[in-house]
């Protein structure tokens, strides 16, 4: 077999076809992302037409605030999903980090805020490392590992909090302002989310180690044979996802002020839904952080728009579920077309 070129969609193809396939997949990605952005725009437009208050500053501010933390979590989840794994434990890691940040600041209000953030991310990274080790070196399927850590970390959170909660009244205002304040009219939280998404997105796109994650997700064996250090990459994906969950936890405390052991309950499904709706396939190998972030915004917009339109908010959960299924079906359709196209190309080369 001739030397294999790494392509964004994996598989063994000759170099020129590889480059073409990459261009084609890049187009597919962009189409997918544009599709999400289009859906988002359409939703905002329709809602604004029915209820113009929806695009008022306050309403948009709320939207950005609600989606920010999910966008950060979805960015981390993307890395893990792309490698054909999953991380269900994000909500529990968030809770641990949120409570830690809250108690630290309550007991030591003079602690510099950047330190709190670093500690939160550190805690998350450690949790992610545990997940990663169990998946790579323990060879335990990610679903089982993160299901177990979802339980264990949540139990740890309950044990640690022991029924107490952090109260907003004990937190320094400078910290709470991060969660509720604005810079030039844009919520600080949204700006932080934007920066995080940009950094992680660029890593996945431009750095070799980032691109290798796609290879691993498309075909772990092929990636390994091509010299990718799969274990190390997958481990780092989990560590980053954990760190971002930790970051999300600190921001959670800044936003809500009052934190107890149930913080973030149920978030894991929303985060995965956001990523999948945003184009990240659950079988790995494709999707982008930007798509996932837009997916998070889309889900948040659905909630807000239903509220403003005074539709029973009960429809929101059902709507999210239906949207998720549609997104999966759509991605499968795209995947099939892509496979067919690539196969045609190789057949033509060979023939």
């Amino acid at each position, binding site marked *: 077999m001739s030397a294999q070129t790494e392509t964004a969609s994996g598989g063994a193809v000759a170099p020129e076809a590889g480059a073409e396939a990459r261009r084609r997949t890049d187009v597919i990605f962009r189409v997918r992302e544009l599709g999400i952005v289009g859906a988002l725009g359409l939703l905002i437009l329709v809602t604004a037409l029915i209820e113009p*208050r929806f695009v008022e500053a*306050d*309403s948009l501010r*709320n939207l950005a605030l*609600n989606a920010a933390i999910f966008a950060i979590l979805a960015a981390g989840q993307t890395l893990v999903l792309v490698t054909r794994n999953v991380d269900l434990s994000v909500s529990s890691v968030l809770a641990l980090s949120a409570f830690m940040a809250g108690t630290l600041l309550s007991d030591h209000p003079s602690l510099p805020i950047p330190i709190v953030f670093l500690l939160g991310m550190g805690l998350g990274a450690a949790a992610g490392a545990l997940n990663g080790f169990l998946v790579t070196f323990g060879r335990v399927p990610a679903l089982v590992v993160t299901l177990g850590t979802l339980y264990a970390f949540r139990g740890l959170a*309950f044990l640690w*909090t022991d*029924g*107490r*909660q952090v*109260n*907003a*009244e004990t937190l320094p205002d400078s910290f709470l302002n991060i969660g*509720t304040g604005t810079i030039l009219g844009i919520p600080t939280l949204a700006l932080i989310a934007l920066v995080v998404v940009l950094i992680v997105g660029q890593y996945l796109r431009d750095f070799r180690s980032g691109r290798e994650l796609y290879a691993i997700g498309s075909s772990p064996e092929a990636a390994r044979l091509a010299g990718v250090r799969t274990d190390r990459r997958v481990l780092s994906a989990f560590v980053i996802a954990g760190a971002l969950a930790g970051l999300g936890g600190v921001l959670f405390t800044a936003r*809500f*002020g*009052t*934190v*107890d*052991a*149930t*913080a973030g309950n149920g978030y894991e499904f929303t985060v995965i839904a956001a990523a999948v709706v945003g184009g990240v396939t659950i079988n790995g190998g494709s999707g982008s952080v930007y798509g996932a972030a837009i997916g998070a915004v889309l889900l948040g917009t659905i909630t*807000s728009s239903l*509220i*403003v339109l*005074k539709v029973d*908010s009960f429809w929101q959960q059902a709507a999210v579920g239906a949207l998720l299924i549609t997104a999966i079906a759509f991605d499968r359709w795209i995947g099939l077309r892509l496979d067919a196209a690539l196969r045609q190309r190789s057949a033509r080369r060979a023939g």
Partner: protein
Amino acid sequence: MTLSRATRLTATTAAALALSVFAAACGESKDDNSSSGSSAAASTNSSSSAANPNAEIKKGIKVVQIPKQLGNPYEDIEDNGTKEAITSVGGTFTRKGPTDAGASTQVPIIQSTIQQKPDAIIIAGNDPDAVAPALKQAAQRGIKVVTQDSDVAKDARTLFINQASVQTIGADEVAMLSEQIGGKGDIAILSATANAPNQNSWIEVMKTELKKPEYSGMKLVKVAYGDDDDQKSFQETQGLLSAYPNLKGIISPTTVGISAAARYLSKSPKKGKVALTGLGTPNQMRKFVKDGTVTEFGLWNPADVGYLGGYATAALVSGQITGKEGEKFKAGKLGERTIGKDGEIILGPLTRFNKDNIDDFDF
């Protein structure tokens, strides 16, 4: 490892038969159903022996307290009051609660508690009917059942310690909000869980009050549920303000709800334009009263509710009272108390907190 066909068939037939025997019953529908009283359960209201007001408080009574959920600061204060009362009469106090206030989360806890054979269970119910069968089972085993703060079905408990009369709470809340918004405008209620009996009884009174002529300018546009979860209450407040731009006031008769709503309101452009009142603890609300988000709100001393509940339970277990109307017992520093209708014992009227008196309290 294939079973022979005959064995397979016999096994499945037997299973199907067993299943159908289990399902066999004459058809029952809602209209046939007269009352939901259980036949076998011993009625907890009937007294086998008469009350003996001079009986001594039994030494070493075991009491288990089941709050609506753990991690609720209001309930923590209340249950500490119960603990104080029970330990001062020489009893042992244990507290076990669920982590969320869903309708049936207390049921497994009640069942475990029955196994440990305490003298009494004091419970703040998450749902009046869901916990009733389990409580009746406890009563059958000789365990006294007392409710506190949030009542359950009357035939499932002997005593109910109520903080203030339902009428007082509902009426006072409406009166406070009306004063703050000048008697006119759209209002909303941010409640706890949809099942909570105490919430629902207060809301009923509020709705009746709003029909009175002096409140004719106020309209209730929505009852939102924050589930006594801080995050959810926060987001429900956000939702109320987005969906109802003409909202003038919010009543939140739950300490978790009002503190979350105040926190949201104080950072939103609607601060000062939308009035917020309800039931809150002074410590949680102090900041918001001082910064103008909240003008006035009410409560009672939750520790006193718990304290009263503790003494009432001790009296019940010792035979001083049996739960009949008119019986009296001594409640430590709260003095002598009388049992009202249907086993209800009321603590007293509402206290209003505003910037003039809020620094006088610490709970």
